[in-house]
């Protein structure tokens, strides 16, 4: 699939980057903050979904503690930034801390396989969240000077750049030697080991990349919000959102998480406006229906649709 799919994926990468490039002109044309905030949310979600996709989609390790790394990135970046460190440096530091923590946790966690890994990481993430909530119970608000200087367009462009970075990173990984090694582990870890793939080292690489990117996304979140509870960035909803978007779109593909993030955010926001009180109920039910009807996500459904169309004339 990867050899045949490589050209296909490259076309998608160019298309997505062109779309992101076009979005760069949006703030010049539209001056409405609600539109920019909405697109910001989609861009942040693309980064988050893509970051989760690296470890789960390519290396096949369902990490349910992803929120912990998003939260660590947010916590470190925001703390440094409020103290006067330039935001890009602060975000890089946040990403470094997230990836370092992932490497510490990764070695024991990767002793677990499959569902056990999923459960273990979920528990780790949750323990970190409760601890942050207990130790830092107070809301974090920007100092008055920063609020006065707040520019939404700065956040918007940063989100745009980060989404592009995440897409480029996955595109580069998918075709590379280490990316192919990760996919071999996903398909069959023992067979990959037997053919000379260093499974643990590659899984740790995937985890570090994935969590570093999640840390960057978290830093952006910390930069974007005027005030929030520090533990909120550790909330498991970040993991679930990333997982849901990736699976709706198509796990282990370049464009799946992008499509999934767009559909997910548009659907959720639309339902929230349309069905204020019932939106989560409808969303949950709709979501179950999507999983049952399209088990492989949008990407596989589209492929199957094309297959049907191609077959019909011959039949």
């Amino acid at each position, binding site marked *: 699939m990867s050899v045949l799919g490589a050209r296909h994926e490259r076309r998608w990468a160019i298309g997505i980057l062109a779309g992101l490039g076009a979005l760069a002109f949006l703030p010049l044309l539209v001056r409405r903050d609600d539109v920019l905030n909405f697109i910001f949310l989609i861009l942040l979600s693309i980064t988050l979904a893509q970051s989760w996709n690296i470890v789960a989609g390519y290396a096949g390790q369902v990490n*349910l503690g992803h929120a912990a790394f998003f939260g660590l990135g947010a916590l470190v970046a925001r703390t440094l930034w409020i103290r006067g460190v330039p935001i890009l440096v602060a975000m890089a530091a946040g990403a470094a801390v997230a990836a370092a923590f992932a490497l510490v946790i990764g070695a024991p966690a990767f002793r*677990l396989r499959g569902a056990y890994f*999923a459960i273990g990481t*979920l528990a*780790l993430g949750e*323990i970190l969240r409760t601890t942050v909530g207990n130790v830092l119970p107070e809301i974090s608000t920007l100092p008055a000077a920063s609020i006065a200087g707040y520019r939404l367009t700065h956040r918007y462009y940063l989100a745009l750049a980060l989404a592009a970075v995440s897409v480029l990173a996955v595109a580069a990984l998918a075709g590379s030697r280490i990316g192919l090694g990760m996919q071999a582990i996903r398909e069959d870890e023992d067979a990959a080991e037997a053919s000379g793939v260093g499974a643990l080292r590659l899984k740790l690489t995937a985890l570090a990349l994935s969590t570093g990117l999640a840390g960057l996304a978290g830093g952006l979140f910390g930069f974007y919000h005027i005030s929030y509870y520090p533990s909120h960035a550790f909330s498991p909803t970040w993991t*679930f959102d990333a997982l849901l978007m990736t699976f709706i779109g198509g796990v282990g593909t370049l464009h799946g998480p992008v499509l999934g993030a767009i559909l997910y955010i548009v659907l959720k926001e639309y339902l929230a406006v349309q069905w204020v009180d*019932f939106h989560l109920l409808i969303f949950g039910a709709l979501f179950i229906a999507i999983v049952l009807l399209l088990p492989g996500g949008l990407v596989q459904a589209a492929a199957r649709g094309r297959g049907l169309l191609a077959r019909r004339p011959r039949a």
Partner: protein
Amino acid sequence: MRILAQQLILGLMLGGLYGLAAAGLSLVFGVLKVLNVAHGELIMLGGYAAFFVVALSGLDPFASLLLVLPLSLLLGVVLYAGLFGFVVRAHEETRVKNSLLIGFGLALALHALAVRLWTADERSIITPYGGSVLRVGGLSIPLMRVLILALALALIGILHVLLTRWRWGKAIRATAEDWEAALLSGIDVRRAYLLAFALGTALAGAAGTLVAIGYSVSPSIGLEWTLKALIVVVLAGLGSMIGTFVGGLVLGAAEAVSAYTFGGPYREVVGLVIFVIVLVARPRGLFGR
């Protein structure tokens, strides 16, 4: 020292409920290879069911189990027929992923439904004898929680007997061991799945009832209970209900001791350390096979 002993007793009593909550999850996971992350929401529903049974009929809270158990057994059958029955048709690898997705969707929907129907307020079942306390050598032991612990242990015992003595219990265990071999020896694997899922849901309902009696329920308790149950499942490993119960007691005791030693805010950190140590030392859990 007395404070520590007091904390330990309360921790063990909560741990018994962790064990009961984990038993249902462990059964479903072990047999169907399906990870139901909405298990905590099922516990929450059980808690509300018990609350309303007691409020509307005036039954004794422990007697409400007689109604809540069959109801949640039925809910389990419905959920299996409507949702999880589709998941088990997939290959084992995709099963876990699909069940995670469906579980999240279900958890989201049930939480939203509970908030709509019953508001976000915390509720607990209050009884005339609820405040009674046993005093043993300077320690106070709430009577209700002793009863809860005893009942949780009794339920685990009944489950253990069902799984080891009953025909279908043995079929469930055979399916958990190797479903293909079970199928070849004439076991209706689908029915074993259905039974295991229904039993797991009934256990969640029972755990919810006990949570509503001894502690409190609100629509948002689901995730917390799912996580505690998951930790216990990993700690204890699959394959033994008694082991799962002991795993629950271990977690409850560990939380109590660490809250005492390091102070409330850091109690989960010690949990983390224990968790990681067990994972490294025994990836299949303390009692796993």
